[in-house]
């Protein structure tokens, strides 16, 4: 098996595993990570929001349909990569190789980064009380934040003081595996292009 096909194969299998196993790609947890008070998990295939272990918001059917469609597309994309990598003798096998793992994981990261940057700023400007109550909300929501959310007690109790609550917003291992599979597919694509260029440059006998 050529190197680029082996790399595509590993990337495709990783992406297939991520799609089938599910799990959040980005999560927000208020409280002890193992027993959070508030948990929000998001991936291209699922959304869940739990307060004290109970689900608080159920996604509308249109969103569930979108998640299912994305999961089906992901499984299809990963399966075609695996098939394309394995069916070396078929002339159309390269048609099956694609960069969906890369586009999906980078697209998701951009979406989450934009949402976590823009939504809290919008919320704080729309509701000034929120900015008073949680002055570091925008920073806390950003992935790889400081790990605490500061609650200003004055608006609640009229007594000076604050609470620093344990707070985590992060990309999960599932996301990093998806991104790794995307990077592998990109490496495979570059290697296959180099191979094609070399073939073209070789003089005909």
């Amino acid at each position, binding site marked *: 098996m050529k190197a680029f096909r082996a790399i595509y194969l590993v990337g495709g299998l990783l992406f297939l595993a991520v799609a089938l196993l599910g799990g959040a790609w980005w999560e927000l947890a208020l409280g002890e990570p193992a027993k959070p008070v508030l948990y929000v998990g998001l991936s291209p295939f699922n959304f869940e929001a739990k307060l004290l272990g109970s689900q608080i918001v159920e996604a509308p059917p249109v969103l569930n*349909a979108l998640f299912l469609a994305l999961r089906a597309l992901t499984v299809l994309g990963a399966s*075609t990569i695996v098939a394309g990598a394995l069916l070396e003798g078929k002339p159309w096998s390269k048609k099956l190789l694609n960069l969906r793992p890369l586009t999906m994981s980078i697209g998701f990261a951009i979406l989450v980064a934009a949402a976590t940057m823009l939504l809290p700023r919008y919320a704080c400007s729309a509701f000034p009380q929120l900015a008073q109550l949680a002055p570091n909300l925008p920073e806390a929501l950003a992935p790889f934040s400081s790990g605490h959310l500061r609650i200003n007690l004055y608006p609640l109790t009229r007594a000076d003081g604050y609470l620093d609550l344990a707070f985590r917003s992060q990309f999960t291992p599932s996301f990093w595996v998806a991104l790794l599979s995307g990077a592998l597919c990109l490496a495979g694509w570059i290697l296959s292009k180099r191979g094609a260029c070399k073939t073209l440059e070789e003089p005909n006998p």
Partner: protein
Amino acid sequence: MSTLEGVKLVALFLRIATAAAVIAPFAVYYAASGSLTGFLAPKTEIRMPNLRFGIVSHDVSEGDSGYVLELKLSNSGDVAFGIRELEGEVSLANGGFKGRFSLESPIVLVPGREGSLRVVLLPEQGDTQTLADALSRGEALNVSGRATLVLGEAELPLSFATELKLSEVGKREGF
């Protein structure tokens, strides 16, 4: 079958599979929801837990390992509430007293129950009579430290710093 035909066939298969993967979930969910409104509207079933507790009474007494501040708490909400860890510093705003405190034993109150939160206080400056007099006069306490709250099955580690008047906290219910 020629190579070109094979490639065209594979491309056609992929297009059909992609279209089916997108259309089928939308069709199934739309059919199951029955109407366009039901299909588009989110089912927001926000079941906010009712976290309410009150301080029934407070007392300061001298114990074996220092002074014990006992707060009698009542859980009037519908979620278990407790404190697993607590330690920090307390001082009177006027500077007459300063000490360190820690939780004697963890406490978890199930809804509708009352219980005592016992905090051991080790004075570093001043004595407890000064503290008791100041509390009875409603003077402010500076309290800072860290704690782990238990809310139902969840745990919430936090650090805090506040200026507190116990007489006002006793009247103030809620979380």
